[in-house]
């Protein structure tokens, strides 16, 4: 029902010299809006606290003065801040500073361009060299491959020549009989042992 108050209304209420130590005021609490009035409060007429006119006048004056001074201070400070900002942007020193910055900027850009040029030259050189290297390697690979093919061809040719030689010893219908007689006359024996140098060591007899 009674709530503790704080804030701006404290000053006015404090002057009313409350009896209790804590400042309280009437507030909707336990009873809701539609509840009937309590029996002990039936004929109660609520009156606001009395105001002392002299005191009120004095208070009003003082308050108005105080607020005036506070408002003025605040506006002063705000104006100072705005002025400082304005000075920053469009003051006399601002132009110099802007000019210096522009100069610096130009100088740095020029230096940057120089560096870019230098690096460009280096890069061009390097890329060229790498291209040459790659070209050379490719040519090398091609040469090697060609060489390998040549070698292969030679091998094949040798084999063909070898075969052509061997053909003279092949068996045909004409020398079939002769070869058979030859074979029957010369039995071959493959049952021998070799040592590490490849010489024949042991040979089993043919029965």
């Amino acid at each position, binding site marked *: 029902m009674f709530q503790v108050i704080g804030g701006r209304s404290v000053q006015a209420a404090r002057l009313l010299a409350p009896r209790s130590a804590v400042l309280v005021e009437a507030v909707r609490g336990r009873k809701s809006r539609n509840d009937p009035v309590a029996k002990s409060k039936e004929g109660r007429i609520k009156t606001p606290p009395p105001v002392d006119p002299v005191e009120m006048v004095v208070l009003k004056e003082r308050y108005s003065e105080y607020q005036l001074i506070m408002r003025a201070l605040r506006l002063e400070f705000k104006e100072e801040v705005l002025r400082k900002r304005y000075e920053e942007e469009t003051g006399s020193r601002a132009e110099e500073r802007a000019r210096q910055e522009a100069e610096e900027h130009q100088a740095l850009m020029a230096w940057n361009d120089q560096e870019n040029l230098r690096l460009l030259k280096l890069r061009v050189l390097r890329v060229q060299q790498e291209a040459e290297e790659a070209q050379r390697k490719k040519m090398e690979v091609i040469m090697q491959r060609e060489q390998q093919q040549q070698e292969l061809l030679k091998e094949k040719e040798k084999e063909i020549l070898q075969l052509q030689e061997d053909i003279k*010893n092949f068996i*045909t219908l004409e020398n079939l009989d002769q070869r058979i007689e030859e074979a*029957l006359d010369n*039995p*071959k024996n493959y049952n021998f042992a070799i040592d590490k140098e490849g010489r024949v060591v042991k040979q089993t007899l*043919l029965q």
Partner: protein
Amino acid sequence: MPRYELSLILKAMQRPETAATLRRTIETLIARGAVVRDLENLGDRLLPYKIDKHNERHSRGSYFLVDFYAAPSILTSFLDHLQRDVDVVRSTVLKKDDRVSSSNCCGPQQ
């Protein structure tokens, strides 16, 4: 054409009959389009075990080796033919591989 090797075990017969069998075999080969390279005789020996073939028990045989070039398609029919020949005890055709390169083998290094 790939190169094959026919190892032939013939029945222990007299020389003219062996010659006739060999002639027959090689003629069959040539008839099927093979090129016979060489014929080797590995001798008449005791067979490692007694072999039963064509209702006969063989304990001795003559070993022969024929290497030839042929198309792979004739091999099955040729083997069939050899199976049906009465004088042939056992026949095997193997492919002849190229000589292995004489570099160091990848065996355990000592």
